[in-house]
């Protein structure tokens, strides 16, 4: 560890002062670890644990009953469908945007990055609201689409759009710094050896960024499945039809069916945990490769 790593020459010269000055005493170290862990316990672990405790309050039977109930299954299916559309869309966009931003110098780049980040800090309520204003019956576009039989709001397309909006930056944001750090040397080499643009991308760039890409996709997916505020505004809350899992949690909660609400919530929490474990496993297994790609 870093705190034990001292050059022998330095420690030979001034051992005592040096230890005080380049690292913390064991007491301070333990104090810091304790403080950090206490903070994480209060704000992270406790909420997580309480979800599972509430879900199993009436035993495993009630827990599983809540999950196989038809409306719960419909919510799970819809959530998976929405994520299956939204994530690939944002994946393609993320790669394209990162390519343009990281591999080229052009004016207005900071502005463009800011625009990409925007959904990150827009209130989810506003994200839903913009689509209501755009496609609602009171707008110009809504009645026009409706007359052609296209429904957006209070149907699956609206939910997908709102989800795409809130998860918009995830992949791009993960890739842009990574590709900026990697520079353009590899690609230039490949091109000078006669590879085509597509070949360069598939054979050179993609292998370099695949871990960052995967991480971005994982986070994007987790958020896509878990989004509440924006989807709530555009969903219409039709039971068994336009309810996603987070909305179904709210409905169950409002029916005083706390066990079922938390049972569905555990699925979402498990999804979050699986995402994190997957990421940790990848980092451990391919740590060297990832580090190499970062330092490229």
């Amino acid at each position, binding site marked *: 560890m870093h705190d034990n790593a001292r050059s022998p020459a330095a420690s030979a010269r001034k051992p005592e002062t040096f230890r005080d000055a380049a690292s913390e005493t064991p007491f301070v170290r333990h104090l810091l670890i304790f403080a950090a862990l206490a903070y994480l316990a209060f704000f992270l672990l406790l909420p997580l644990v309480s979800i599972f405790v509430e879900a199993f309050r009436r035993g495993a039977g009630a827990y599983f009953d809540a999950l196989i109930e038809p409306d719960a299954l419909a919510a799970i299916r819809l959530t998976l469908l929405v994520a299956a559309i939204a994530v690939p869309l944002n994946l393609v966009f993320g790669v394209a945007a990162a390519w343009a931003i990281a591999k080229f110098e052009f004016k207005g780049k900071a502005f463009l990055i800011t625009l990409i980040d925007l959904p990150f800090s827009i209130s989810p309520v506003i994200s839903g609201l913009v689509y209501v204003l755009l496609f609602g019956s009171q707008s110009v576009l809504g009645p026009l689409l409706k007359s052609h039989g296209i429904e957006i709001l209070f149907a699956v397309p609206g939910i997908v759009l709102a989800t795409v909006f809130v998860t918009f930056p995830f992949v791009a944001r993960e890739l842009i710094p990574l590709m900026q750090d990697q520079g353009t040397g590899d690609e230039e080499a490949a091109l000078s050896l006669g590879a085509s643009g597509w070949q360069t991308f598939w054979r050179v760039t993609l292998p370099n960024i695949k871990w960052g890409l995967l991480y971005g996709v994982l986070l994007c997916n987790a958020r896509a*499945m878990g989004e509440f505020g924006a989807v709530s505004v555009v969903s219409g809350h039709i039971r068994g039809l336009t309810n996603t899992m987070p909305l179904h949690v709210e409905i169950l909660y409002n029916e005083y069916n706390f066990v079922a609400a938390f049972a569905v919530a555990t699925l979402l929490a498990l999804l979050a945990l699986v995402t994190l474990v997957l990421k940790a496993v990848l980092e451990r297994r391919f740590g060297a490769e990832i580090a190499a790609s970062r330092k490229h």
Partner: protein
Amino acid sequence: MTDTTYAVAKWRIRKPSVIPGFGLTLGFSLAYLSLIILIPISGLVWRTASMGWGEFFAIATDERTLRALYVSFGTAFVAGLVNVVFGVLVAWILVRYNFRGRRLIDSVVDLPFALPTAVAGIALAALYAPNGWVGSLVAPLGLKIAFTPLGIIVALIFIGLPFVVRTVQPVMEEIDSEVEEAAATLGANRFQTIRRVLLPGLMPAILTGFALAFARGVGEYGSVIFIAGNIPYVSEIAPLLIVIRLEEFHYEGATAIASIMLVISFAMLFIINLIQAWSRRRFGHA
């Protein structure tokens, strides 16, 4: 609009490069960006603009609006500060110390990114209510957390927790311990080393993390409404006021507040990106 401007002007505004695909990737990015983000948002702006300055000004300076914005920005600021202190601490112990469960802690930090906010809100409200696990601990001290602005801060700490850790951690990993040793051999004590040598290098990352957590906190809705108490002028956040205005069929009120928040978010993000670009140039990393 932006799309064509770029396509026409790109040869002038970008530096020449042998790498292909600029037109394709930038064109696609801008088209997609316009479709998903810009057109919907311009709908909001158009709607706000059509109400006229007088009405907009009246809504924007209404005391309830101002208080709601103050509550949102104030609590997000405090939560951001707490996350700066503890986020740096968590990053520090993850990078510098080896202890059992370090990997576990390292992966759990991202939980708030992945956990749906409504679920977080329900769980936090149950914990911090006067009869909850944590709430009942602090209740004898006369301290109320849930249903007060403190509750909002708790929710926003949860939401913003990963931001500072995740922006500071990679930068900290790259700090060469030789710098600290050099400072130490030159006679600096540990406190001085941290303050004069380590912190300045970490500052851009800390600021970025703070700003991200802050921006996220200002707009947060799902987790906050369950724990806030939602009392106008006291614990009513701006996104809730937007929802209230919508439910009064007062679209102008809703879009006006939304536009104000939008402008502030955009300004904040722009500043963050400038900090990042600056630190990339100065330190070679963001």
